[in-house]
């Protein structure tokens, strides 16, 4: 094995599945991690994932192959995902499941003790491993335990209840540090790092009501976007067809419900109408999410057939034996009873689509480098793997897989940083007239190239300047005394985004929405705080997050406005077809500091492996 790099320090922002996976890989390769998170990693949003994780385990005698997994993912994503990247992920999937199994994840098992598999949307073979209905919780816990072990060895330095504010670049524009703030003491500190990995999860809260946790605010992505990181495919927001509508949160009813035989229907002419089964006989209730959501929307909004005239349809499990349901779906059925006061084993559940997941995110290459050297991104906050629509149970996989990719990549980068330090020492010796060994002399020839690529470590002055800038900005926020309440403003933002930038998108509405969001951005300046204190001031933190969220909302809206076609989760009645000629391209958003608006452009990507075909799911 190569000599382990010493004194490597890498910042991982995020203690979800992706951040923890990256952390493990770094520790195993001899590095040390500064791990930042809003909450103990064990409370990260990944634990909300219920249904399962895809991997071709083929334990059901169905002849499943990784190629089918690959093809389903590309087709499901409506041919907008980098196919080489997707292929890598699908091939790695069974190994990742095996790793989790060794780590003690209590996967649901068959009578003979091997991993059970279930059906999931957009795939005809059973490919989804699961731990009851709390798969994400169990996977997250396993990684959390492994990371805790590394913490006891002194290799992980947890900064829990610290908020990432922004990265720090050196003169060469290379990310070599970051600024964060303690959410209790309010201390703001700048950190010198070899590189920074963002694994901050999805931006659901930009839409106010969604299925995600309250900490999934997209603020970190909004922050680095303003520092020059590009965002890829931001307009692709997944609307999950089956959530329990709520006023504080839309609680997800996992796709596993349909995977285990749940049926969706409404009354039509006095009789149950199973509209998905009728229109898509091949996939039935297991069509991908964008299609199911659109059909439900159509039935409720355009045809006015929602239950009791409201925007709700039935998700029915009542025909399935209760003990089977208990074993496979126990936890979430209990949740429905708990929050709705009705037993889904006996009566059909009432559900409606909700904002759920972002396919888009920070642009990364296949190694999860962003366009800013020294800044990497993995997990839901990046844009890789899912194209225009994500298949259910593929994102726990992409979160874990991207962590396994970015960990070693960040270590290689840090290795270069260490090499440069060593060369600088030799160079200094030489300049002092000491003689070097021939091998050292030879190595020194590479110093200029490395200097060019990495630039210098951040100086104390640079660290302090970055810290002070954030501290000044925070003091400004704490003192804000205007008329607006930040949480009210957030609610308004969410309502707009939910109304105009979800299932059906109309160009003139998107123009309107964009202008309204800009007004909200202006009103942000008129926020007034009721808490002006310097201890655990959650209000002030939220105000800072909100600004990043508003800017990210502009990116999503603008990108949706510009894409005049329908593809995956992005649907425009004005342009009902996929337009490969003009739009089989990745959307790229760059921040324009002058207007604070995004500049949208398009880039080609690798789709050489599977030829695009119409995505119909056998619709009749």
């Amino acid at each position: 094995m190569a000599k382990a790099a010493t004194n490597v320090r890498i910042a991982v922002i995020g203690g979800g599945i992706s951040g923890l996976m990256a952390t493990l890989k770094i520790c195993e390769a001899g590095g040390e991690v500064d791990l930042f998170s809003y909450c103990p990693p064990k409370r990260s949003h990944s634990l909300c994932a219920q249904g399962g994780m895809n991997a071709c385990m083929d334990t059901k005698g169905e002849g499943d192959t990784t190629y089918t997994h690959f093809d389903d993912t590309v087709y499901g994503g409506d041919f907008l995902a980098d196919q080489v990247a997707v292929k890598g992920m699908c091939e790695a999937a069974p190994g990742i499941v095996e790793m989790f199994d060794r780590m003690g994840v209590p996967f649901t098992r068959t009578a003979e003790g091997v991993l059970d598999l279930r059906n999931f949307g957009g795939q005809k073979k059973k490919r989804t491993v699961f731990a009851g209905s709390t798969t994400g919780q169990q996977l997250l816990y396993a990684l959390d335990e492994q990371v805790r072990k590394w913490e006891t060895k002194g290799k992980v330095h947890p900064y829990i209840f610290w908020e990432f504010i922004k990265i720090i670049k050196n003169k060469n524009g290379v990310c070599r540090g970051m600024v964060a703030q303690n959410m209790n003491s309010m201390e703001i500190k700048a950190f010198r790092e070899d590189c920074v990995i963002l694994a901050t999860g999805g931006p659901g809260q930009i839409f106010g009501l969604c299925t995600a946790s309250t900490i999934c605010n997209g603020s970190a992505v909004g922050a680095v976007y303003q520092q020059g990181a590009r965002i890829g495919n931001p307009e692709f927001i997944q609307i999950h067809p089956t959530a329990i509508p709520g006023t504080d949160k839309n609680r997800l009813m996992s796709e596993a419900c349909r995977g285990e035989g749940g049926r969706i229907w409404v009354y039509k002419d006095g009789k149950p109408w199973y509209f998905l089964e009728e229109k898509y006989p091949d996939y039935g209730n297991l069509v991908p999410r964008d299609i199911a959501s659109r059909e439900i929307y159509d039935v409720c909004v355009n045809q006015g057939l929602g239950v009791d005239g409201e925007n709700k349809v039935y998700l029915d499990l009542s025909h399935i034996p209760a003990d089977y349901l208990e074993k496979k779906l126990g936890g979430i059925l209990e949740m429905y009873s708990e929050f709705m006061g009705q037993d889904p084993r006996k009566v059909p559940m009432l559900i409606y689509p909700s904002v759920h997941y972002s396919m888009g995110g920070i642009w990364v290459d296949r190694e999860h480098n962003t366009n800013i050297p020294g800044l990497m991104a993995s997990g839901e906050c990046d844009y890789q793997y899912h194209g225009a629509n994500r298949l259910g149970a593929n994102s726990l996989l992409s979160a874990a897989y991207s962590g396994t990719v970015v960990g070693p990549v960040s270590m290689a980068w840090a290795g270069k940083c260490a090499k440069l330090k060593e060369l600088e020492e030799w160079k200094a010796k030489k300049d002092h007239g000491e003689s070097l060994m021939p091998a050292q002399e030879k190595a020194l020839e590479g110093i200029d190239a490395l200097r060019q690529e990495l630039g210098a470590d951040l100086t104390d002055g640079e660290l302090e300047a970055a810290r002070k800038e954030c501290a000044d900005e925070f003091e400004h926020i704490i003192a804000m005394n205007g008329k607006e309440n930040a949480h009210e403003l957030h609610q308004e933002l969410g309502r707009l985004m939910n109304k105009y930038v979800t299932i059906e998108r109309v160009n003139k509405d998107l123009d309107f929405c964009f202008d309204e969001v800009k007004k909200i951005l202006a009103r942000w300046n008129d926020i007034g705080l009721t808490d002006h204190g310097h201890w655990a001031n959650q209000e002030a933190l939220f105000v800072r997050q909100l600004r990043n969220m508003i800017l990210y909302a502009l990116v999503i809206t603008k990108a949706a406005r510009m894409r005049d076609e329908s593809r995956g989760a992005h649907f425009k009645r004005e342009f009902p077809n996929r337009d490969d000629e003009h739009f089989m391209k990745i959307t790229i958003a760059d921040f324009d500091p002058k207007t604070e608006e995004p500049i949208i452009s398009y880039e080609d990507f690798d789709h050489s492996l599977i030829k695009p075909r119409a995505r119909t799911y056998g619709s009749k």
Partner: protein
Amino acid sequence: MAEQKMVTFIIERQDGPDAKPYTEEFDVPYRPALNVVAALMEIQKNPVTRDGKRVAPVVWECNCLEKVCGACMMVINGQAKQACCALVEDLEQPIHLAPARTFPVIRDLLIDRTVMFESLKKIQGWINVDGSWKVHEAPRQNPNTAATAYEISHCMTCGCCMEACPNVGPQSDFIGPAPVVQAYLFNINPLGEYDKPKRLEALMQKGGITSCGNSQNCVRACPKNIKLTTYLAQLNRDVNIQAIKNIFNN
């Protein structure tokens, strides 16, 4: 128009770890399926007390809003509970909220549960895998044992059981029911079993399982319905067996 029904909350507040607690009362408009976290969010939008005073919004912790992350534990009408699934219609009003004082209070309802995560280190709460790389296929598992593991692995480190346990607190060094029972989770795993003696040794130490007075409060408090006392009893037996083994080995 029918008059808007209001729900009154009496909240025990505290400005910092060493500050004196005080209470404030808030009215929140009632709506069906309103839960305690949703009510706190309403207060955030308009932090005005019943007597018309504009105050700093109440501070608390929450993430998932669906009873899986464990963050939102607080004392509601005298009982430790998850606030996000505490429905207002199931609670006697006015509703009293207080921080779980088994743990240090940071501010208002926000508490510091670091000790629970530290205890997981003491009991070596992990499977000692060599690495995340490919090594071998994972062993098969008895599906019944796996089902027990699944039950215990629901523990979300919320601390309800810690707050309910009479033996956890500043008066004792008992690490509490949650971390103790986690040891059982790893002991029954086919690979985790290898380190069972080490975990049992840890439980024999001061603050370990012998500090449990078997008062059964914990099991009633657990929002995840983990059969804590069943596993505590099992661990007690395991610890005793280990102790005897140790005598003979010496």
